[in-house]
């Protein structure tokens, strides 16, 4: 059976799914991701922290919307391992 892995943000901040406002999202729901792929950004005090996939699989769902405010440790997405 496929294993589910939740992606957490280690830091608080503002959530972004795109590298820049005029760019496409890093990854769409349902897309395959590899370990180390950037899936989102968290803006913390004018710095951008990359959230990376820590496993290979399909990014099934994001739990937060673009520009949502995140707490440290909050669940942001789930990856289903293949």
């Amino acid at each position: 059976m496929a294993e589910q892995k939740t992606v957490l943000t280690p830091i608080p901040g503002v959530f972004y799914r795109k590298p820049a406002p005029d760019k496409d999202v890093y990854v769409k729901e349902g897309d395959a991701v590899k370990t180390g792929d950037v899936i989102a950004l968290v803006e913390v005090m004018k710095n951008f922290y990359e959230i990376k996939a820590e496993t290979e699989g399909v990014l099934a769902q994001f739990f937060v919307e673009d520009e949502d405010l995140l707490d440290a440790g909050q669940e942001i997405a789930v990856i289903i391992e293949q």
Partner: protein
Amino acid sequence: MSYFRKVLIANRGEIARRIIRTCKKLGIDTVAVYSEADAEAPHVSEATEAVCIGPAQAKKSYLYVEKVIQVAKETNADAIHPGYGFLSENAEFVRRCEEENIVFIGPSAETIRLMGSKLEARVQMKKAGVKVVPGTDRSLDSVEEAVLVANELGYPLMLKASAGGGGIGMQLVLDQDELIKVFDATKQKANSFFNDGTVFLEKWISKPRHIEVQIVADTYGNVLHLFERECSVQRRNQKVIEESPSPFLDDALRKELLEAAIRGVKQINYTNVGTMEFIFDENKNFYFLEMNTRLQVEHPVTEEITGLDLVEWQLKIAAKEPLAVSQEEINKTGHAIECRLYAEDPYTFFPSPGVISGLELPKDEARFDFGYTNGSTVTPFYDAMIGKIIVHGISRDHAIDKMQKVLEEMNIHGVKSNLPLLKKIMRNDQFINGSYTTEFLNENKGLLVER
């Protein structure tokens, strides 16, 4: 006598508290604005009244022009003090204030627009006979044009966005191949970041020192300088330590620099307080870099050596009163140093938001301009600066000695801070000799290693 009845402060943190302090002293009421994330922030309770202007993200609150204007009108504020950052150098905001008959405490929209363009600023300074970094004075529209200009100037060069600032929109190019490679991307980035794709080339200056001149100008053409500030200790193009006088300048060079700054400011009919930033090369040649058309973070260094209140002068000039002093009446005494305390890892500079606990400041031994108090939350949404520690001594050695003691007596818990780095810098020989450049932290990697 009061310059205004009520001033709205379109800012947060230490600078909002700093402005409130002077307003209180002068009997002026204050309106604080705050985001939802700052409801518990000290500046909110210290103002006469406070209004929430939106969610945490700056663009939805502190940068929201129409909301700030609306609150100023609803609270009957006569004037708006923008502090630094946020809307302080936003010409459109100033134009809106002018339109609504609210006094903007700073220069005119037109001056801000002029100095906001690095290319236009270069042209103006050359007209005033102030040296600028060798480079182009026109926009480079194609990579072919850039290559031609670059061959004339000689590498290495800086490719700069005209609308950029604070280290953003700059690209070092070492040779022609690199210029060809980065030209389009830099232009595009300038366009998407600043909505202005104008780029130009300047000679790259190795091992520079960053020295700036504080100026004040009233609406009657009186222009004064308040000496220089040495700001070469930087990380990621952001200042960490500032001092005045600069240990690099002798009296003749200082005089030359201060006179150049005054010439430049007169050229553009500047009003209010402002800062002319210069870059010095290894041979003591100096060039105009840019002008900051606002109060600076490091203004306390100048206040300490001159005994003046720069916020009061801003209010006075904005109220159209003349500067009632001459240059000869402005004196400096001793030496001042400021350290910026950031909520960040002292070795990687990565931000560290959190709740401040156990904040201990030896109050009687230094000036502490802090945005936070014990128990305050440093949220992830704004600048990482917690506050500034400023000391004044009879000499540079005395000031360093005082700063060393103050930093040793300080304590902060709950967030990571750069306090350990500040302590090490104050005991570093190169810093103590005063022989440092903006490469200081890169050259002293040992300071950035935990021991």
